[in-house]
């Protein structure tokens, strides 16, 4: 009977396409907005993703995010290194400093530290060599800053990208580009620069650090290590996921979740209204045929299965099309400043919503079918 249900469904092409379109619009809005939101959220804790290797992060207890960082004395590094089962610990500097290009343009740049000994904090390099970082004034510039933000604008409006060997000033000190790297942009159009912690100390004149990234020994109890770290009230130790959550929670205080939540709600309303209404009309049009199936010996359970199958079919097709469209969108914008993050959990989230809408519209229609009197078949339909 599932085949019969399917043929009934595709037999009415207008309703079939209309229902799929309803689901498509609904899920597209939900998944696309959610992917943008998750992209924004991941930018808030991009420092955790940029620095590869550590499983523990240590910071001042007042630190909650990029916008709320309280620096720590560099000496805390020794305290962390002294804790048993810490394999290595590296200082991570993150500060904002003024930057002036040779053409005279002024920017506030974001400076990210790289550990002098271990090179922890080193970004992926498109061009350049990490050994050059030890040169006087050496910095790595992110590709977006090189190609766009700091590029020299010619008289005809064309931009000339900065390259290795080009120079500019950071906080009044000479800086020379020794590499072009990859960095996740933040919320503001600021140049992103990477340099050795010792070099940053020269730029800023301060030896204070913002984070300590640490790696625990294999097989050790991370929670126990964190307990030891946190026994000192002047520092806060968190796992990488713990720091992501802390920063994300701080970011969510902006109310952005409500804004995107409204978009998701709108998507659901579109799904319920467009797909629901068309499916309801489709069922009403087929009421006579369900009555026929009942009169030929079909049970309520059989009709229930047929209607749920029809609702799920349009739901799944709409869901797949919308997901494909969202992923295509993500692919198209992958090298731009736009945000997009599509984890597998988002597939589950949007799939669940498509399922809820399918079941809702099925039950909305089933009520009508079950209330129908098959005796009406005896009269002319």
């Amino acid at each position, binding site marked *: 009977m599932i085949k019969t249900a399917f043929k009934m469904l595709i037999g009415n092409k207008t309703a079939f396409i209309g229902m799929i379109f309803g689901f498509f619009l609904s899920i597209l809005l939900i998944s696309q907005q959610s992917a943008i939101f998750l992209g924004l959220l991941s930018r808030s804790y991009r420092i955790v993703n940029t620095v590869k290797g550590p499983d523990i992060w240590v910071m001042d207890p007042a630190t909650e995010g990029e916008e709320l960082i309280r620096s720590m004395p560099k000496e805390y590094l020794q305290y962390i290194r002294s804790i048993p089962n810490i394999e290595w610990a590296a200082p991570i500097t993150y500060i904002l400093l003024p930057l002036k290009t040779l053409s005279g343009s002024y920017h506030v740049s974001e400076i990210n530290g790289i550990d002098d000994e271990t090179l922890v904090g080193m970004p992926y390099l498109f061009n350049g060599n990490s050994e050059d970082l030890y040169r006087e004034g050496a910095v790595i510039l992110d590709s977006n800053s090189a190609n766009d933000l700091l590029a020299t604008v010619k008289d005809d409006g064309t931009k000339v990208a900065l390259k290795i060997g080009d120079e500019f000033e950071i906080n009044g000190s000479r800086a020379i580009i020794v590499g072009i790297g990859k960095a996740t942009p933040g919320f503001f159009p600021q140049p992103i620069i990477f340099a050795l912690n010792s070099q940053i100390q020269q730029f800023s004149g301060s030896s204070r650090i913002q984070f300590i990234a640490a790696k625990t020994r294999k097989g050790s109890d991370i929670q126990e290590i964190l307990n030891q770290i946190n026994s000192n009230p002047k520092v806060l130790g968190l796992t990488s996921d713990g720091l992501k959550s802390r920063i994300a929670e701080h970011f969510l205080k902006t109310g952005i979740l409500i804004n995107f939540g409204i978009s998701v709600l709108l998507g659901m309303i579109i799904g319920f209204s467009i797909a629901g209404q068309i499916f309801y009309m489709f069922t009403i049009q087929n009421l006579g045929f369900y009555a026929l199936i009942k*009169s030929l*010996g079909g049970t309520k359970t059989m009709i229930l299965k047929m209607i749920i199958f029809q609702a799920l079919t349009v739901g799944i097709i709409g869901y797949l099309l919308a997901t494909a469209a969202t992923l295509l969108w993500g692919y198209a914008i992958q090298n731009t400043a736009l945000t997009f993050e599509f984890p597998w959990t988002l597939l589950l989230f949007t799939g669940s919503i498509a399922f809820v809408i399918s079941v809702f519209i099925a039950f909305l229609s089933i009520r009508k079918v079950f209330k129908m*009197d098959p005796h009406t078949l005896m009269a002319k339909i």
Partner: protein
Amino acid sequence: MIAIKCQGIKKHYNSGENIVWALKSIDIEIFDNQLTFLVGPSGSGKTTLMSIIETLLTPDEGELFLLGTHMNTMNEFEKAKFRNNNIGVVFQSLNLIPTLTVLENVTLPLLIRGDDEKKANIKGMALLEELHIGDKKNSPPTDLSRGQQQRVAIARALITDPKILLCDEPTSALDEENGFAFMTLLKKLASIQKRTVLVITHDNRIFPFADRMIHINDGTIGEKK
């Protein structure tokens, strides 16, 4: 042998001041091997009585026996199963599903029963061949003439090999030639295949085909022949 037995069947619609008694205590017995006509004017209660016999409608009072089985004691699931196995219906409006092919329409009762699709198709094809519309098996019913559609409807009604065949105004949309051909077929089904065939009609052109006629008027059984 009595195939259909109605005892004191009553049925009303609406309530209070608007109450309408469609059937006012119906007592009839319909036998197998016979082509029985249920005739009467519009609003006389023919369709209500047919629906009760088809077990789609439950009477307010009275008892219904089909093939010796007391239907009042059955639940909806049991009635559905009984209908599928023992009752074939040709509706006035035929109710063929336009999105299914002729063969799929015919085999629908077998698929509802849960039969294998291949076996159902073999049986359906045999019936369509017997009714001379085998070449239309893959056509949508909307591509067929009214006479051919009627044959599809009867093939669907017969596919489960039911002992009782109910037809609601089967000739109302047919010309005389097709109407007579259809009635000849029903006559054969009753006399040769020994089925109980009950036809609702007010088409007096086909009255000569009846083995027996039951008149119903204002919810009561009148003259019997």
